[in-house]
C-alpha cells in the first residue's frame, strides 16, 4: 500500500483484514510462481504482430506524476487476456502525445495523481488528432480526493477538444455492459457514480474516471495487490477490474452490445446482475 502523504496511517480493522488477505495472497502467489514460473510472462502471441495486439499504452508528459500506478497497465493487459478473447501485449508501452508512434496503437491510458503544467502545442495537436482519427483514451485520476490532476486534465481537454466537452456517460451506456454487466463505475475508491466522456460522432472517444482504477488493478510481480480498495474491499476490486475489461472491450467493439440482437439477453440478465 502506498500513501501519497509520506507517513503511514494507523491500520484500521479493515486494513488489518486486508493485510491478512494480502499475506495469504502472497503465499499463494509464491506457490503459483513456483509451480508455473511462466504464468505471468508473456505467452506466445497469437496475433500477426504487435499492430494486432491490444496495448495498454501509457501517456508520458512533463511534470506532475504520470506514473502513479506503474504496474496497473500490465495488470489490466493480463486480466483482459485472461478473461476475454482479446490478444494483449503484456508489457505495455509508453509514449508522449507528440510522439507519432501513438498512432500505432489506438488505446492510451493516461493516469496521474498531481497537477501538471500545460502540455505543449504538439502534444495538444497529437491528442486531438489521436482522438479524431479513431483513438480511444482512458484517463484515470489516481487522486480523487485531490483536485490537482483533475484541474489539469480538464484544462488540457478543453484546449484539445474545445468543441467536444466532457459529459457524464449515462448509466445505460455500453461501457457498463460491453462484457460484464455493471451497475456503476468503481475503482480503488467508490468515487462518483458516473464516468465522464467525450463523444465524437457516435462513439465515445475518451473516458474519464475519478475512481483510481489503476489503484485497484496495480499488483506487483509477486501477485500482491499494491493498494487496498475502499469501501467495498475485494468485491469492489473485482468490479474495478471488470470495468477495466469493459473499457478495453468497448474501445475494440464500440457499441456492439447495442446491436438489436443483444437486447433481449441483456435485459433478461440485468435483473440478476451483481450489485
Amino acid at each position, binding site marked *: 500500500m502506498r500513501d501519497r502523504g509520506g507517513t503511514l496511517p494507523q491500520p484500521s480493522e479493515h486494513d488489518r483484514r486486508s493485510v491478512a488477505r494480502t499475506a495469504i495472497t502472497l503465499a499463494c502467489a509464491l506457490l503459483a510462481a513456483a509451480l508455473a514460473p511462466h504464468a505471468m510472462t508473456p505467452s506466445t502471441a*497469437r*496475433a*500477426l*504482430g*504487435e*499492430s*494486432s495486439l*491490444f496495448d495498454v499504452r501509457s501517456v508520458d508528459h512533463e511534470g506532475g506524476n504520470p506514473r502513479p500506478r506503474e504496474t496497473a497497465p500490465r495488470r489490466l493487459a493480463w486480466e483482459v487476456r*485472461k*478473461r*476475454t*478473447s*482479446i*490478444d494483449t501485449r503484456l508489457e505495455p508501452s509508453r509514449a508522449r502525445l507528440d510522439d*507519432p508512434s*501513438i*498512432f*500505432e*496503437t*489506438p488505446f492510451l491510458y493516461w493516469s496521474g495523481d498531481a497537477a501538471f503544467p500545460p502540455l505543449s502545442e504538439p502534444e495538444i495537436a497529437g491528442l486531438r*488528432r*489521436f482522438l479524431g*482519427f*479513431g*483513438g480511444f483514451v482512458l484517463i484515470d485520476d489516481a487522486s480523487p480526493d485531490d483536485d490537482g490532476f483533475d484541474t489539469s486534465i480538464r484544462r488540457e481537454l478543453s484546449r484539445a477538444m474545445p468543441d467536444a466537452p466532457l459529459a457524464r456517460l449515462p448509466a445505460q451506456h455500453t461501457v457498463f*455492459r*460491453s*462484457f*460484464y*454487466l455493471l451497475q456503476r463505475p468503481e475503482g480503488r475508491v467508490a468515487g462518483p457514480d458516473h464516468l465522464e466522456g467525450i463523444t465524437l*460522432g*457516435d*462513439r465515445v472517444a475518451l473516458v474519464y474516471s475519478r475512481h483510481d482504477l489503476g489503484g485497484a488493478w496495480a499488483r506487483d510481480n509477486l501477485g500482491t495487490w499494491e493498494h487496498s480498495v475502499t469501501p467495498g474491499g475485494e468485491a469492489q476490486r*473485482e468490479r474495478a*477490474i*471488470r470495468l477495466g475489461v469493459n473499457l478495453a*472491450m468497448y*474501445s*475494440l*467493439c*464500440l*457499441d*456492439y*452490445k447495442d*446491436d438489436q*440482437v*443483444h437486447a433481449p*439477453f*441483456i435485459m433478461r*440478465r440485468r435483473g*440478476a*446482475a*451483481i450489485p
Partner: protein
Amino acid sequence: MSDARLALEIPGGVISALLIAAALVAVIVIGLRHLGVSDVRRRRALIALRVATALAALLVAIQPTWSGERLDQRPGRLAVLFDASRSGIVRTGEEEDARTRADEAEALAARWSGAQRERAPDVYTFGAALRPARLETLAEELAPIEDDTRLAAAIEAAAEGPAGDELGAVLVVSDGADLAGGALETATRLGLRVHAVALGAGASLRDDAIAEVRADRVGFLRRTAMVRVTVRRLGESAGEIPVALMRGEETLRETAVVVPEDGEATVDLAFTPDRLGRSVYRVVIPTAPGDAVPQNNERAFLVRVARDNLRVLLVAGQPSWDERFLRAFLTRDPTTDLISFFILRNTSDMTMAQPEELALIPFPTDELFHEHLGSFDVVLFQNFEYAPYQMAGYLPRIRDYVMRGGSFAMIGGPLSFSAAGYAETPIAEVLPVGVLPRGTAETQAITTDRFQPVLAEDASRHPLVALLPDARANAAAWAALSPLQGLNVTTDVRSGGQRLLQHPTRRDRSGAPLSVLVSGSAGRGRVMALMTDTSWRWGMTSGGQQGDASAYERFWDRALRWLSRDPALEPARIETDRESYGPSARMRIDASLADERYVPLGAREVTITVLGEADRPLASADVRTDGEGRARVELVAPDEPGGYRVVAVERGATDVLAEEVFVVESGGQELADPRPRPDVLRELAARTGGEIFEDPEQAPDLERFDATRVRSLGVVTERPFASPWAFLVLVALFGAEWILRRRWGAR
C-alpha cells in the same frame, strides 16, 4: 478598317494633352501680343506659322494613334440547317388537316431545290447533332425524330464542316425551340451571319402537357418513393387536370391539380415499389379536344428498385483493432444493415464471473447460417475460426450461397485461412487463394514483419485498389500508406482469382509473391481474401501521421460495393447518351468493355443489340472496339413506348458482357414544351446581321440570303506623328518663323 479607335500615347492621356494645348495657346497669345510687325500680310504670315508650329508641337507631343480591325469581305458559302427535332410534328393550326412545322420545312426545301443557282449551299439537318443532307431529297428525307434541338452545336459543327473557311452565313429553318441555348454566343464567336426562317411562328397553341417529371432513378423495395410532376396548360382557361401514376396498365395513384391558363402547377405523387429490378412508371393526363400535342400528355420514367439497404454479416473471431475500425466503418453508413458477431471469450478464458454477470449471448449459428444466410448481400469472416462453434455443418451452405451469387470475404488474422483449418472445408473451394492444410510448416509460419504491400501487375485498374485513377499516382498513393504488419501465408491464386496486392519480398512455395489481397469469383458469386488484420493502419496510422485517413475508407467502400456488385464498379459497361428517348430517336451508345480482371478487352468484334420484351432483338450493330475496349455506335430507338435494354455480346459468344436499360416515351423532353420560339431566332438574326422570315412562304430563294464572308486581317495601328519627319516639320516651321521674324525686324 472597322471600329477605328483613337488613343493618345502621352502619359496622362487626354488631361496631359489638354494641359499642353493650353500651354501652347498661351504661348501663341503671348507671342502675338509682342509680335512687333505692323505689316498686315507679314503679321498674318507669322501668326499662321506660329499656330502651325504650336499645332505640330502638340501633335508630336501627344502622339495620337489610330487602331482598328482590318476586315476582308468576299462572297462565302451558305449552310442551310433544317430542324429535324420532334417538335416538327406540332401542327401550325387547330384544324385536323393543318400543316405541321415539318410540313412547312419540307415545302420550303422542295421550293428551294427547284431553283437554279450558281453556287449550291451546304445542306444539313440537325437535332442533337448535325447531319449532312441533300436539298433535292430533303423533302422526302426530313423526318422529325430528333429528341433535342441544339442549335449552338449545329452552328459550330457547320462551321467545322467541308465549307471550312469559305462559310459566310448560316440559314436556320427551325421553330427556335432550342433546349440547350448558346446559339448567339457561338455565332458571334465564329463571326457568322445567321439568317432564319421561323416555323410555326404565327400559330396559336392549345395544349395540356406534362412539362416535367422528377423521380429518383433508384428506388428501394417497399419504401415510399416520390415523383414530382409539373403540368402546363397553354391556350385554355384555368382548370383542374387529373394526373395518374401508372405502372403498365395499373393505376397506382390518381389526383387532380389546378393549373392556371398559360401556367404551370406541380403535384407530388407517392408510390411504393414492391418488386426488385427495373420498373417503368408512367404519368398520364387526359387528352382534351383540340390538344395540339397529345404526345406530351404522358411521360415515362425508369426506376431501378433495389433492396433498401446493403445487408452485411460480419463474424469476427476476437475483438481486434481491424474489426473495430471495420465495424465503425460499416455502422457509419446508414444504407448498410450490419449484423455482426464477435467472439468475446473462448472456452479457455476465465471470466471470473457467473454467466448472468456477463453480457454475452450464445452464437446463433443456426439462425445465421441456416435461416437467414440468403438474405445477406455480403458475408465477412474476419479472423474467425469455425471449428470451436460446431460450424462445420454450415460451411457447405456458405459455399453454396456464394455459388448462387452471394459474396464472401475472408480477412486475415491468427484465426484465419490455414491456421483455422479452412483447407479441409468447402470454404476453400470458393476462396480465391489456396489454403495450406493445418499443421504444415507454413501454416505456423505466419509472417509478423512489417511490410509495404505493392500493387500486383495489371491490378491498378481494379476498383478495390484504384485509390486514384492515374496508375503512377495510384502506386505512389499505396507506397505512401502506413505499412501493414503480419500476413497469413497462402498459396497459389486460384482460377478466376486476381492478385491485387502482394508482399514486396516474400514468396510462396511456388515462388510467386506472397499474396496480400486477392479478388475472385466462385460460381455466380464474388469472393475476396485479405491476408492481414492490420488494414486499420491505412486509416488511423496513416491519418495520424500524414493527416489523411481516407484511403482506408475508400478501400473498404470499394470492397463492399464490388462484393455487392455495384453497377458502377462493373468491369464492362454500356452507357446510353440519355435514359429516355422518343420513338425512333437516334441513340448514341458507348461501350467500355473489360474482363473480370478489369483489363480492357482490346480490339474485339462486338454486337450491340436493343432488346424488347422477352429479349426480342429490335435493332443491332456490329462494332470493333479499340485498344482500350471502347466503342461507340448509333442505333434507332424502338417505335413503341416502354422499357428496353441494350446489351453487348462478343460476336460468336452468348454471355452478355454489359447491359443498360432505357425507356421510350411518346412525348419526351423535346415535346414537353412545344411552343415555338421565334424570339430566339429573331435575336440571333438581328445580332449577327442576318435576316429573319417568320412566314416560310415569304422566305426568298437561297441566292438572296447574304452569305458575304467577313474575315479579320488583324488589328492595324497607325502612328502618323511618330516618325522623324514629323519632328523635322516641326523644326522647319519653328525655324521658318524665327528666320522671318528676324528678317522682318520682329523680336
